[in-house]
């Protein structure tokens, strides 16, 4: 009572969460396009996934640049004289540019129908795509003063989310292709299960932490943020699709697509809550 509190703005707003979502799907689709060279069942997705991945990279890049308060200075991050390699953002920028170049070359190889070059470039693109969710997770992990962000499994969680989101979009793109849907169901099931396991471990350790951790746990599990994180992220977007995919309905094509839509909704909610929830605590410190 009578206290004077000074508010601080959160550092990263919702645009960054949308970027996480978009770039996760981008990486996931790149994995699928690479997978089409290894598994015949994914062959119908090769071009669709590659073009979709590149389109989302453009959207993600624009979101990232637009989120800067000095958008025209985004080139500073590629200036060798300025680059600070202790920052994960610097590595992320290099990764995005390298992925973009590899994607363009890969799309050109697909257009020319060059099998040998396509296979090599698909591998390179997929490896660089793996760096995208890893760097976004690492981007949060390095902030050791923020509970939940500072858990070392964050990059692993973002990789699992990228596979789940990419498989979900792949399931929608696959349409009525039965063999692709069957494989994507497996991908969806295992990646979503991995997301669930990691979330349980994060929540468990957060609740056993110090005051900051416990307060962050409360922010994430109650009120509006609780509805987004637990309600949409965990129940609707993680537990429900797993249950659905294990049920007989989930073995049908419609069931896989429905599970994919739920995973996408959950993936968006989880990324938003994981980004915004842990920032709320410090706004009053």
């Amino acid at each position, binding site marked *: 009572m009578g206290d004077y509190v000074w*508010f601080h703005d959160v550092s990263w707003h919702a645009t960054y969460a949308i970027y996480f979502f978009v770039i996760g799907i981008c990486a996931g689709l790149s994995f699928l396009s690479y997978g089409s060279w290894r598994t015949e069942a994914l062959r119908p997705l090769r071009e669709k996934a590659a073009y979709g991945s590149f389109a989302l990279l453009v959207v993600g890049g624009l979101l990232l640049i637009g989120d800067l308060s000095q958008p025209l200075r985004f080139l*500073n991050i590629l200036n060798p004289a300025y680059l600070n390699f*202790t920052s994960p953002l610097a590595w992320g920028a290099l990764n995005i540019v390298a992925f973009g170049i590899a994607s363009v070359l890969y799309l050109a190889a697909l257009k020319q129908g060059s099998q040998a070059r396509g296979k090599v470039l698909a591998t390179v693109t997929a490896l660089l795509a793996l760096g995208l969710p890893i760097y976004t997770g690492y981007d949060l992990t*390095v902030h050791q*003063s923020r509970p939940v962000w500072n858990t070392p499994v964050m990059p692993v969680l973002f990789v699992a989310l990228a596979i789940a989101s990419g498989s979900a979009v792949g399931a929608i793109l696959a349409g009525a292709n039965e063999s692709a849907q069957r494989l994507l169901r497996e991908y969806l099931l295992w990646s979503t299960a991995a997301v669930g396991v990691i979330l349980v471990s994060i929540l468990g350790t957060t609740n056993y932490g110090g*005051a900051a951790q416990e307060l962050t746990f409360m922010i994430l599990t109650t009120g509006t943020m609780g509805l987004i994180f637990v309600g949409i992220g965990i129940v609707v977007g993680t537990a429900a699709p797993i249950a659905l995919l294990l049920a007989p309905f989930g073995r049908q094509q419609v069931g896989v697509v429905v599970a994919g839509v739920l995973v996408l909704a959950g993936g968006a909610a989880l990324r938003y809550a994981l980004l915004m929830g842990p920032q709320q605590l410090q*706004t009053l410190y």
Partner: protein
Amino acid sequence: MSDELRVSPIETREVPGKRRFAMVVDTRRCIGCMACQVACKAEYDTPLGVNRTWVPYKVVGKYPNVKKQFLPRLCNHCDDPPCVRNCPVGATYKHEDGGFVLQRYERCIGCRSCMAACPYNARFMLPSHRTYTPITNVVDKCTFCFHRVTQNLVPACVQTCIGRSRVFGDLNDPTSEVSYLVAKNATQVLRPEEGTKPHVFYIGADRNQTEFGRDAYRKPDVMELQRDAFKRHFNI
């Protein structure tokens, strides 16, 4: 001793020939006049709604024995600053002589990574328009009044502090007042568990303010409205 405690090569603790500026805030002497806040605003034309230094307070105790406990806050000019590590373009850097953590405004891209990294919320985004100063849309923070200190003046907040609550000086100089205060008093720094090695030392700070409290969870909604209005006005 110092060599054992020094972890990062950029740390300035007892490095020969290098100064290590620090501030001691004696909260027992702070009367909450907010003159430091005003002096800082005047020195830098800091816009409405953001501050380089601020003085939050809590009312502690039980009626009739109650008192206001002040905790002046500012950038801690950490010896091992996470904001410097996190800046992707080197816009935030540590000045070798003095340990000032400073900002290159012309290089800042506004990614707010430094804001996320700072455990003390000492950094803020400047609004898109200002009345007298052309520096906009970049991250700003306290500079320990670098421009004044390099001319042998103390920071504006220290100059104006009527209760002499804020004391500034070179911690590497054993004869300085800050060295004496840190050596002779029980001091504390904010959030020592973060390993940032802050250069702002508090005497008599209250745990109600230095630690996370339940208020962080129960946010007063009325203030949220004010903050939203501010953000809309300044397009933040």
